[in-house]
């Protein structure tokens, strides 16, 4: 682990991982992960398949307990802090005839884990309307979710994750099934809403380029290890070469960044692959 951020302020950190290691089937999926994220920052998580991105998300969500190390959200054990972590899943493809309106989906983010049923109420309704307005989804609030486009659904999922006022929101490959324009829209929207609400964003993606304009720091994962810092600090030939364990070149063309592998190129992420 190379934490390139010189200032570590644990007092106001939203997410703290110390010495986290995970072994699955005799293999170290993650090891020696130390990281600390600040309130309101936008962190992109990049890395090749099998680098441990999904495992990292599961740990932060409290769905997987690390074999070593500690995970804290806002200074509390992750399992006691579940309400502080919002989540946007990788895939959500509802049936076209699902009897669920946009507002119903968002409302589940507010109280879906509670027992019983809700009798509605003006405050709950107002809260849902507010969350819909954050993502500019009020005009399709009463549409069935199965009839919405991928971009419209993605905005609802963001609202669903943010409505419970989390301190941190995790987005698992939210750009995977979107065209380039929608990718840009989703990234801009997440960046804006999170900034306004002071929520830390952890966004996992294959391609760092759509994030370059909004990302405060990048968490680069490879071989179960991580490098955290600004793009200029992390996405460099020497840093990535050490992370990958073999020679890597970083090329900048027309404002885009390409990560190019050497002899062992197959194990590299493709910095330009879209989706």
């Amino acid at each position, binding site marked *: 682990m190379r934490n390139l951020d010189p200032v570590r302020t644990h007092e106001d950190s939203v997410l703290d991982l110390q010495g986290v290691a995970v072994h699955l089937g005799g293999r170290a999926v993650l090891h020696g992960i130390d990281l600390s994220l600040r309130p309101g920052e936008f962190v992109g998580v990049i890395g090749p398949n099998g680098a441990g991105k999904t495992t990292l998300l599961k740990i932060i969500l409290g769905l997987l307990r690390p074999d070593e190390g500690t995970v804290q959200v806002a200074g509390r054990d992750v399992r006691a802090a579940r*309400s502080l972590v919002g989540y946007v*899943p990788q895939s959500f493809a509802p049936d076209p005839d699902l*009897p669920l*309106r946009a507002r119903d989906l968002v409302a*589940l983010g507010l109280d879906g*884990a*509670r*027992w019983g*049923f809700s009798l509605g109420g003006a405050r709950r309704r107002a809260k849902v309307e507010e969350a819909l307005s954050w993502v500019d989804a009020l005009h399709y609030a009463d549409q069935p979710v199965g009839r919405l486009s991928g971009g419209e659904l993605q905005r609802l*999922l963001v609202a669903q994750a943010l409505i419970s006022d989390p301190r941190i929101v995790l987005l698992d490959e939210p750009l995977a099934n979107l065209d380039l324009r929608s990718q840009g829209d989703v990234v801009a929207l997440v960046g804006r809403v999170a900034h306004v609400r002071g929520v830390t964003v952890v966004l996992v993606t294959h391609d760092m380029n759509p994030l370059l304009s909004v990302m405060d720091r990048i968490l680069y994962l490879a071989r179960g290890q991580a490098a955290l810092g600004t793009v200029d600090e992390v996405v460099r030939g020497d840093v990535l070469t050490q992370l990958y364990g073999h020679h890597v070149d970083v090329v900048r063309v027309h404002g885009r960044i390409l990560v190019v592998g050497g002899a062992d190129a197959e194990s590299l992420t493709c910095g330009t692959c879209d989706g």
Partner: protein
Amino acid sequence: MGLWQTLFPSGLFTASFMQNAWLAGTAVAALSALVGFFVVLRGATFVAHAVPRASFAGAAGAVLAGGDTVLGLAIFSALSALGMAALGTRRDQGQTTALVLMAALGLGSLFLALGGAYAPEVYALLFGQIVGIGRMDVYAILGLLLLALAATALLYRPLLWSSVAPDVAEAKGVPRRRMEILFLLLVALAATAAVPIVGALLSFSLMVGPAAAAAYFGRSPGQALGIAVLIGILSIWLSLVFAYDTGLPVGFFVAAVTAVFYGLGRLWAHLWQIERGRGQVPV
């Protein structure tokens, strides 16, 4: 006199066996639609088909052992539901459901063969016997309905969330596996109540038909659930009237009426979409 009298002869409401049929049928229809709402939401129609059939083997076993057939139904529907939950994989729920169903049906045929060639109780459980039930059966079914109502009232939000967006629900503390087991137990509960009334072969139509139709009429989960229960109750009422008038089996009418409601739902959704499409500005 005339049409009214023909459609609704006096015995339809006054005969005591018909009064039991109205009560039990209404309760079973409401219970099936309630559980069926979640079956349709989860896309788990095969499970709803398999559990009542698998439970039939329990009734055959009960006949063989000289026990209570409804108890046999309850045990086998719960066991098959738990078996499906234990073996089920996310990738192919259908495969393991089919395997559990096959195992149960195999046992059922063995029990039938060992118990003698013809067992009227077992035959009744295949096709249902709504006009042959006693007052105690009615109370038992009402009890099952109350149990299911209490369970769904308690589980409503987490079960709904886990059904429509399991990944997010799990991340927010609604365990997917636990919800799956509770859902399957609800299906087993509905099967236990429905099989003696409408039969193992057709209880499926009461569970899936109204809920599938309601998904087209209702726009929110609450609406769809309410409409499913209404369609279910209306279906069984119409079926009872038709069956009483014609002397044909109730199961036939239940299947036919729920199918008609489903068709109406599709038509409604189709028309509604055309209407909506007309009002839209092309992007």
